[in-house]
């Protein structure tokens, strides 16, 4: 799927995964794990090619690519005051919230009143709802307690079963195992099977 990616984090990085497959990337802080996800999402200038189901990324307008290959940063940004305004389909968001132990009423809160964990889970819902083909997740459970982490993993497992591919950065090796993800290690500008 991705080949010869070369940028600020080193490289070339090569990465391939099929429908419903997951890859978990570990590595020391600052090794460029986030930068690698951003390269796949085409958010930073870099070299290399990425394809999705045979379709070349370069032949696709960037916004269409990012709708199909959605990136969730470790500290997601918000651009409206209220949580609900970030969800074009409020009913769909409300339907998914209980599965992550979030009360639908949270949508009426302003973003700065929400806890870090609540914001992270809402951002995950925001990213999953449009049903992208690939999810690029940067430490999606980094700010969550064990209970919420288990709920997020269950939701991700459902997406995997539905055919979504997931590339995630994590510090938790057990998490990779629970999701049945192939483990890869990024260090000193090289990406290797772990």
């Amino acid at each position, binding site marked *: 799927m991705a080949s010869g990616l070369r940028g600020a984090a080193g490289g070339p990085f090569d990465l391939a995964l099929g429908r419903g497959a997951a890859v978990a990337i570990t590595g020391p802080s600052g090794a460029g794990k986030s930068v690698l996800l951003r390269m796949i999402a085409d958010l930073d200038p870099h070299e290399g090619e990425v394809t999705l189901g045979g379709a070349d990324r370069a032949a696709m307008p*960037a916004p269409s690519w990012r709708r199909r290959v959605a990136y*969730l940063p470790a500290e997601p*940004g918000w*651009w409206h005051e209220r949580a609900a305004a970030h969800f074009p389909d409020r009913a769909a968001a409300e339907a998914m919230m209980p599965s992550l132990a979030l009360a639908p009423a949270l949508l009426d809160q302003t973003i700065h009143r929400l806890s870090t964990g609540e914001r992270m889970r809402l951002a995950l819902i925001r990213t999953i709802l449009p049903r992208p083909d690939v999810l690029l997740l940067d430490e999606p459970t980094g700010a969550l307690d064990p209970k919420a982490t288990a709920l997020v993993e269950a939701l991700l497992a459902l997406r995997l079963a539905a055919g979504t591919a997931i590339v995630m950065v994590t510090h938790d090796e057990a998490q990779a195992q629970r999701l049945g993800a192939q483990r890869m290690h990024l260090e000193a500008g090289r990406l290797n099977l772990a």
Partner: protein
Amino acid sequence: MTPIDLTPADLLIAASLVLVDALASVLLGLRLHRQLLVAAARCAVQLLLIGFLLRFVFAAEAPLLTLGIILLMVAIAGREVAARPERRLARHGNQIAGLSAVALATFITAIFALATAIRPEPWYAARYAIPLAGIMLGNALNAASLSLDALLSAVTRERAAIEAQLALGTSFRDAMRPLLREAVRRGMLPIVNTMSAAGLVTLPGIMTGQILAGLSPVAAVKYQIMLMFLLAGATGIAAVGAAYFAARRLTDGRERLRLDRLH
């Protein structure tokens, strides 16, 4: 009524007020007297030079000379716009955005005014074109620098919010829209304030000058109203232009947010 021509002696009498200021600075320990005297001297010398230069240019009736002077004024204004913001776009982005914005605003409004409302003979007569371009430039400069500064600081502050939208497949244009709107608003507020306060709080400087120079107040007012409308047009074009030209430099063909181009 003919204008009362001022003699050098008249100007010297007025200059005594500057000396009073300087004296106050010395007595109160403001340490402003040097700067004050230098500024007053610069003001007199610069304006006198411009006065003689304009007299020469008006008499010369050479369109190329007129155009050359206006272009020089545009270049200086563009540089000022570029210098205001704390952040700089790489590869002379600030200069290009500033210059394009003030040039566009000045040429469009000045030519519009010369071709429709004022209609001197010929339409490019230096006596009309240069002062008109000057006042448009001054206001376009103000609007463009406010707008550019607002956009460049907002884009740094809102980086996470913009990228979150890009990551979900929103176009760069849509993600930037609220920031552009805010920047243009900032650039246009001063002219809105000036127009609403005109005549009530302030007598605009040009009008005051014209009345003192002997023009009837109503004739002076009509000129002032037209100028205000032209200025509103110029500030709008300059504010929109500066924000959009800068925004274009902040992205690339893949609709990324290129903050690496901002230093």
